[in-house]
């Protein structure tokens, strides 16, 4: 009896720290939107906490006009990149967990370490190689880069996910004469949807938010939204209200993904997908 009462008491106060933290997490978004709705004259550091006198969507319209080609560029880069790296990761993870070859135990850490390298140290050779193979300046250069540097994390997630699946599943199929492809396509692929969601969200976010590679590897016409947004900040007067509205537009796709797919992401993690 007392234990249950205790649990009940604790549940009530739990909302106080949670709500306070929630406010802290939302603060930057509040400032962004609040400023995005203001007219230019109302925007200043001193009045950043004041609400706008009138809600105007003009800033968002202007930001959309400026950024929509780049938002589309981002989609053209991010969607193929996330899709290809998900499949590549699932193939690698599958082979490295369920179809191990001699040396697989060396290959896996070798792939994995790539996750940890500081990208600054590979920039110059990267640009050189990209221009050598004739991809520099195109969106495909970025797709390739995100796919390649995504190999470690996507392989890791899929490998851990597949490793947690019982051996008996595929042993039975092998006995029935199923080969490497049949086992993958008939048994493991359908089972790996949660891992796909995690990997897809992860890669989508990473590629969408990338700036470093994008600024180096794309030409003006192919700029994704992060680079275009960065260029909106002029060198003299900056129209902060439009900048903030643009920031919000740039953040919206990943934000929506986290809001609507966030629980699949978490569930995927909880089913062991990201336990490392």
């Amino acid at each position: 009896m007392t234990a249950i009462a205790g649990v009940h008491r604790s549940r009530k106060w739990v909302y106080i720290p949670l709500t306070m933290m929630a406010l802290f997490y939302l603060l930057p978004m509040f400032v962004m939107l609040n400023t995005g709705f203001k007219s230019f004259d109302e925007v200043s550091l001193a009045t950043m906490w004041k609400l706008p006198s009138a809600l105007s969507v003009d800033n968002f319209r202007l930001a959309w006009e400026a950024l929509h080609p780049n938002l589309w560029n981002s989609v053209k880069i991010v969607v193929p990149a996330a899709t290809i790296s998900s499949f590549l990761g699932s193939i690698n993870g599958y082979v490295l967990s369920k179809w191990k070859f001699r040396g697989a135990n060396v290959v896996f850490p070798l792939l994995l370490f790539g996750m940890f390298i500081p990208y600054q140290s590979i920039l110059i050779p990267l640009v050189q190689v990209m221009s050598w193979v004739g991809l520099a300046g195109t969106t495909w250069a970025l797709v390739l880069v995100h796919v390649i540097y995504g190999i470690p994390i996507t392989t890791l997630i899929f490998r851990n996910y597949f490793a947690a699946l019982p051996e008996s599943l595929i042993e039975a199929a092998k006995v029935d004469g199923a080969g490497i492809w049949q086992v993958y396509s008939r048994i493991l692929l359908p089972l790996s949807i949660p891992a796909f969601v995690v990997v897809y969200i992860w890669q989508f976010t990473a590629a969408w938010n990338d700036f470093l590679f994008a600024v180096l590897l794309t030409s003006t016409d192919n700029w994704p939204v992060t680079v275009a947004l960065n260029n909106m900040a002029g060198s003299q007067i900056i129209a902060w209200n439009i900048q903030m509205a643009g920031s919000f537009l740039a953040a919206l796709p990943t934000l929506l993904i986290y809001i609507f797919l966030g629980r699949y992401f978490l569930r995927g993690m909880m089913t062991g997908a990201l336990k490392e």
Partner: protein
Amino acid sequence: MTTAETDIDVQGGEAPPKHKRFRMENWWGVLWVLPSLLAVMIFVYGFIAWTARVSVSKWKGLDPDYTFVGGENFVNLASDRRFHIDVVNTAIFTVVFVLGCLLIGLGLAILLDKGIRAEGFYRSLFLFPMAISFIVTGVVWRWLMNPAQGERLSGLNLLFDNLGLDFMINSWHATPTWGIAAVALPAVWQMSGYTMALYLAGLRGIPEALREAARVDGASEFQIYRRVIMPLLWPVTLAALIILGHSSLKVFDLIIALAGKQVALDVPAIYMWTTTFDGFFFGRGAAIGMVLLFSVAVLVIPYLWYSLRQEAEG
């Protein structure tokens, strides 16, 4: 699985048919992984080797100069005052960032694990900063952490002032020596939700029976967390430590977005960037890159080794 038993004698045709089939399929496995492996060998290890070569060259200026100078660039770094500041800043940043994320992440996970209503809402909310880059929020954070005092008070300081929390007003990243700690705040904002998710996954993996047993033994809630749950969460903590630790060694865009390039808030990644691209000291920049890589390796390789061993054993 019995991979270890497959022999290396690939050309031997006398092996029994069953073995032969297995060997064939193993080659298929290699083939499937080969594209990824090749890509990583070139784009990660090949490029690292290239950087390593530059780090022992005297290349300065736009013209590549691969004259071998041995460890000169590294020796110079050892006596470089700016690099010393970088090391101290990285240490402070790492401690604040990693501890902040672990404590807040664990705290939030424990609160959410209490079986509250609207758990999904809170979870998504704590996780969403991860979805946004500092290219997008950098300006907002710069406004929030504006260090101006007195009449020009703004950002969080102004909010504190309005709420009567005057004691919390501070100079943020303009604070001497410890300013870098303030820069860790947005980083904690971004990554603590992820840490929470890791811990929450860990907590959900602990059978309720274990807690019940401890309760029956008369342990208080605090003792249960201290003695039962925390030890079980150790692998999660370790994983989080590695992920957060290595990303704090690489911190770059956050600082640029928040405070620009200034020696007071310098870290190795920024020094490398500016010395390479503003000063064209390619040799020195590559040396900093190698030191960074080495620090990351020292942190990560034992962990990878340890966890793969653990996995193999259990």
